[in-house]
């Protein structure tokens, strides 16, 4: 899908949720500055996360909450493995616990842990196009 601006991104979210709602483990793939965090911000806005969704690069994992349809508090995890050097470091921060539950979990720079991706992950591929446009693909 071609995304020209943040409004286009917002409009993409319902289709994304429909596509990803059973897996809920999302691998965000694309170079720096392509809009991976912006995608999670658009998702958070749509689903009702009230806090600001900020870059998780330094913190490694940011946690957010929202009320789901049955009014229970659910979690969204937003992770960034950019700073990690090996899968062992990812295991040390307890990454398996975040992958093995019902919460939404978005992972930037997930290639490092490809060996332990759950079998039904959703991949989103981001590409930069000329004129600041982006191509976003759900796999």
């Amino acid at each position, binding site marked *: 899908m071609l995304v020209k601006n943040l409004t286009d991104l917002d409009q993409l979210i319902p289709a994304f949720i429909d596509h990803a709602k059973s897996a809920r483990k999302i691998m965000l793939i694309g170079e720096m500055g392509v809009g991976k965090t912006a995608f999670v911000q658009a998702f958070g806005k749509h689903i009702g996360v009230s806090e600001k969704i*900020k870059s998780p690069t330094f913190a*490694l994992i940011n946690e957010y909450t929202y009320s789901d349809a049955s009014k229970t508090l659910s979690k969204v995890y937003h992770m960034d493995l950019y700073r990690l050097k090996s899968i062992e*470091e990812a295991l040390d921060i307890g990454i398996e616990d975040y992958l093995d539950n019902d919460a939404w979990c978005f992972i930037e720079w997930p290639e490092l842990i490809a060996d332990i991706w759950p079998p039904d992950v959703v991949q989103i591929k981001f590409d930069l196009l000329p004129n600041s446009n982006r191509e976003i693909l759900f796999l």
Partner: protein
Amino acid sequence: MNTIILAIESSCDDTSASIIKDGEILSNCTATQDAHKAYGGVVPEVASRAHQVNIIPVVNLALQKAGIAKTDLSAVAFTRGPGLIGSLLVGVSFAKSFALSLDIPLIEVHHMQAHVMAHFAEDPKPNFPFLCLTVSGGHTQIVLVKAPLEMEILGETIDDAAGEAFDKTGKLLGLDYPAGPIIDKLAKEGKAVFDFPEPKIPELNFSFSGLKTSILYFLKRNLKEDPDFIKTNLVDICASVQTRIVSILMNKLELAAKQTGLKEIAIAGGVSANSELRKTLQEKGKELGWTTYIPHIQYCTDNAGMIAVVAHYKFLKGQFTTQDVIPTARYEEI
């Protein structure tokens, strides 16, 4: 009787311990620098397990350097959050057991409040109320500090932190991580000849994500015409990016000072080590009649000394924590 507190910080990469006696810091030790020299061994850079390995040596070192025995302690303080939950758990569990075994009170500390209160580790100390710009790899905030434990966030980043803008620019330029200090050094030899746009963000909030993208496009465009563009222009690119990051920070700080009418202005956090930010703050301060405060670098990065300072004020107020406390990754829960 003296008030002697052991403080522990384990919210992110570094394990740190500090001893404070009647408001004066006696020791401030961080595992990556000190404990390994004393105990040897190799520890991974980012891992909760590293905190487990580090915490006992670093606490012992802090006690030893301060010349304090465990039985002299009046309380144990710890960072409750925000941070990486696995890392926080190590510090919280340690502090709880330590306090329980010595039968002394526990004190929880908010990591971001501690960054601001780092100004009270040494003289000169700001007068209340004052404004503090806290800038680090993970945070960018303007805080109105009304009293030692009374703060209000006036503005903050809506996406990336200022320190991250340095690090990610470094990545695009092929520099090592963390790139902040490297860019600072290279920028000294360059001129800010390239203009990067200043984001238009309402009120006192910041954004650095757009800057990152504009640098990315700028480099792509120029590399297409000249494959050696980065190599030939590295110092000027560094100077240009640094100048823009600093101007984004300073413009909002100036606006906050104007809106609040305050002239006591402080900066804190790891990015306050940046020489251009320090210089610009002092120049701006002179121009506008501010009194400016920049803590010593050991109190700017994540450290237990700043946790100890907050703990000291909480001890005086009798603000203790019960044994059922749990850490939290989330900022708002504290």
